[in-house]
């Protein structure tokens, strides 16, 4: 298998180098309107999505960001598909690890960006080392070695995407007039693979004649025929490009039901997916390629519109065009980024209120918080509509939803108390969770398909939503605990504020307990239906129970009076640790039936968060104890 991969890599390098040595594309990057192109449906990771989402996910995978400095993701993808000569020269591979660069002999660059040609050549020169690395068992490779193998896969993927539409690119030049006449095309014609196949009988005759000749006796026409044959052969190798599934399926019952496998253009030819509709689609794609390569904006616009309509018509009613359009709009609006900005703005404005005009600043901060919450909620609802499922199905979505619940809770607190506390909690918790969410958003398609275990919408809408509401309430209670301890440290004499915080903490703790217990019980009922048992001591189940037990202990202790407000506040701060361990920590174990949320690389951050929280509690406790002694003596 590795040998095959090495051969493939050689082909990749050869093709890349050949393209680079060919004339550099004379086209500047066309400034087209990419909207219709970006709206085209494509099936990727089991889901039909706009090409815009696909391009963003892919570009993020290669480059680390969803757009290039001078190019949107759809524009980048269009260049990949229609003008590989330029695409191969564009520095999109993000290699920041100096060990990886040293291993393959690339020089360090401050911006960490390298193009396809230089990366693929560097990898090819180190093919034996890659072969050895690939043979190592998992777990025995260093971080840099893992990244090197990942880079190796990305180079293949990049090439595969770039060659997805090579069957309709007009790259076969028939310049020789005699050859052109025998093939019955105009001299100077540029044919694509499909067009060339129409002239196959005449071409085969010419090629056979040329091969039969002694090389010294070959005429220019013979050489042109052989060169054409070489080009045809190179294109035929692209049949392996199956990643970009642009063609709706037609020929099975599942296609009519809307859950059929879409086809890559080359697969249509190779696997028998052809039909009059695919032929028309290929004609449109070919016209689009010509418009791109000739820089004809008007032709590009009209062809992209036609192609979009035809693809939708071919996909039929099974394609949810409204969801597709909503997803495109969702991508454009970037609602969560703006809600993060609004939350940060609310925090800053609230602090600025300390300098003067506090009433005005409070109103402004509350408006910003409310605006952020609105954008946040619209984003969550849009995702629900697009995916036709409840708001929480992945770890990323749980972060978004917990953030929203926290902000809503904070807004309710502010409406009740009108003392800036709710604004502060909402702004801090909302921005923190949105920031963490943004980190997860770059990890592939944030609207991934559900693991089979989760694919039960009723329980997703009840158990998962309830338990994540519980997380959000715990988070609010935890932030209140922080505030209590800070007030206790800096304004120990402010009894009124401490009492208010104590009451709110207890209320938030009770609400959190209610949802945590209800969610856990609902989860048990779901588990009974899905797995045949109510409780199985799975890590996630244990985590949920830990939260419930922790809150029961705290709330019970406080209500019964055995826990003083200070101890209760410390416990509430540590609730954040318990929740973080149940929410993210169990996923690090990668065991149990809930391991669908497995995440790596978060152990350090989780450890840091828990340590800081514990240190905060200990630090505050020691300070308060010391302060009391000082006051008493």
């Amino acid at each position: 298998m590795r040998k095959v991969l090495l051969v493939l890599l050689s082909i990749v390098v050869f093709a890349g180098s050949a393209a680079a040595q060919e004339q550099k594309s004379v086209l500047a990057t066309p400034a087209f309107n990419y909207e219709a192109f970006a709206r085209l449906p494509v099936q990727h990771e089991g889901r039909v999505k706009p090409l815009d989402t696909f391009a963003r996910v892919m570009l993020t995978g290669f480059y680390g960001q969803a757009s290039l400095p001078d190019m949107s993701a759809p524009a980048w993808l269009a260049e990949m598909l229609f003008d590989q000569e330029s695409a191969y020269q564009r520095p999109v591979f993000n290699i920041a690890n100096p060990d990886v660069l040293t291993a393959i002999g690339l020089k360090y660059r401050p911006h960490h960006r390298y193009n396809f040609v230089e990366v693929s050549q560097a990898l090819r020169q180190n093919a034996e080392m890659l072969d050895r690395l690939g043979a190592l068992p998992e777990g025995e490779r260093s971080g840099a070695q893992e990244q090197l193998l990942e880079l190796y896969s990305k180079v293949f993927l990049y090439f595969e995407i770039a060659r997805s539409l090579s069957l309709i690119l007009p790259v076969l030049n028939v310049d020789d007039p005699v050859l052109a006449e025998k093939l019955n095309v105009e001299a100077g014609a540029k044919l694509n693979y499909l067009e060339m196949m129409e002239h196959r009988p005449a071409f085969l005759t010419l090629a056979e004649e040329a091969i039969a000749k002694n090389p010294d006796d070959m005429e220019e026409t013979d050489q042109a025929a052989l060169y054409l044959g070489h080009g045809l052969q190179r294109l035929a190798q692209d049949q392996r490009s199956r990643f970009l599934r642009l063609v709706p399926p037609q020929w099975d019952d599942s296609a009519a039901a809307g859950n059929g496998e879409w086809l890559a253009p080359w697969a249509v030819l190779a696997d028998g997916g052809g039909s009059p509709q695919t032929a028309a689609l290929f004609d449109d794609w070919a016209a689009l390629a010509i418009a791109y390569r000739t820089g004809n904006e008007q032709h590009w616009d009209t062809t992209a519109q036609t192609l979009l309509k035809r693809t939708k018509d071919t996909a039929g009613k099974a394609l949810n065009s409204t969801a597709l359009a909503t997803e495109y709009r969702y991508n454009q609006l970037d609602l969560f980024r703006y809600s993060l900005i609004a939350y940060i703005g609310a925090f800053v404005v609230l602090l600025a209120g300390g300098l003067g005009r506090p009433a005005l600043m409070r109103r402004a901060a509350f408006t910003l918080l409310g605006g952020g919450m609105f954008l946040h909620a619209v984003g969550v609802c849009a995702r629900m509509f697009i995916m036709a499922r409840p708001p929480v199905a992945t770890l990323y979505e749980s972060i978004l939803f917990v953030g929203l619940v926290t902000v809503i809770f904070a807004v309710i607190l502010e409406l009740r108390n009108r003392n800036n506390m709710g604004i502060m909690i909402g702004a801090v918790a909302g921005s923190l969770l949105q920031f963490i969410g943004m980190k997860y958003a770059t990890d592939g398609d944030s609207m991934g398909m559900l693991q089979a275990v989760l694919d039960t919408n009723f329980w997703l809408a009840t158990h998962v939503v309830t338990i994540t509401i519980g997380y959000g309430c715990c988070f609010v209670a935890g932030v209140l605990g922080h505030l209590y301890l800070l007030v206790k440290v800096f304004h120990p004499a402010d009894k009124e504020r401490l009492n208010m915080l104590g009451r709110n903490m207890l209320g938030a703790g009770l609400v959190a307990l209610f949802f945590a217990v209800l969610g856990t019980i609902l989860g048990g009922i779901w588990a009974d239906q899905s797995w045949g048992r109510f409780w199985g001591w799975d890590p996630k189940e244990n985590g949920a129970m830990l939260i419930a037990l922790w809150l029961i202990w705290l709330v019970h202790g406080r209500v019964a009076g055995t826990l003083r407000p200070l101890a209760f506040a410390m416990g509430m701060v540590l609730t954040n640790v318990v929740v973080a361990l149940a929410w993210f920590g169990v996923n690090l174990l990668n065991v149990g039936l809930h391991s669908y949320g497995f995440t790596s690389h978060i152990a350090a951050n989780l450890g840091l968060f828990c340590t800081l929280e514990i240190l905060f509690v200990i630090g505050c406790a020691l300070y308060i104890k010391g302060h009391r002694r000082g006051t008493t003596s």
Partner: protein
Amino acid sequence: MKLNPKIIAIILVVVFGLAAAGYDRWATPHGMKPVTANSKTVVYEQAPDLSFVTLEGEKYTLNDLPEQGVLLHFWASWCTTCIAEFPDLLESVVRADGKVALVAVSIDDDRERMERYLEKSLRKKASDNVDFPSIYWVWDEGKEISLKTFNVLRVPETVFINSQGEMVKKTIGEADWMGSDMTAIYAGFAQE
């Protein structure tokens, strides 16, 4: 904060109301309807009204054909799978007794090679079936039907077209022409 039962009640009503209201919608993804091969809920694409010329020089269009159903079969003389399944394919069309037409489109580059195969090989195996009136032998010069209209490069492939001109099925590769599935499809054509 005092625990306000009204707030808890409102949150509960919202959560479970949403779940209950959304259950029906979410239980069945958008646009999905149960379909079967013969179900009328499936909207089939219309086949183009192709015109073709048989080896005898007679010109037809798909709509001209008197048979109820049409098998638009793509094959080549160099294709071993095509050659292997031809006797069964021809026999199945003969058994349909004029209800099903076979338009056998050869994608051979060389017409003479194709005709040589028909005369010297196939006729020996399938005897008179080659000349059955519902079988139309076509050489696809210029790949007009195969590549340009149906994107066919690999053979054998067969598109099934019903009496309304709808493309109801396609088989890719070797098919079981004498099997019960095919018998059912032929019977369906005959009833139309």
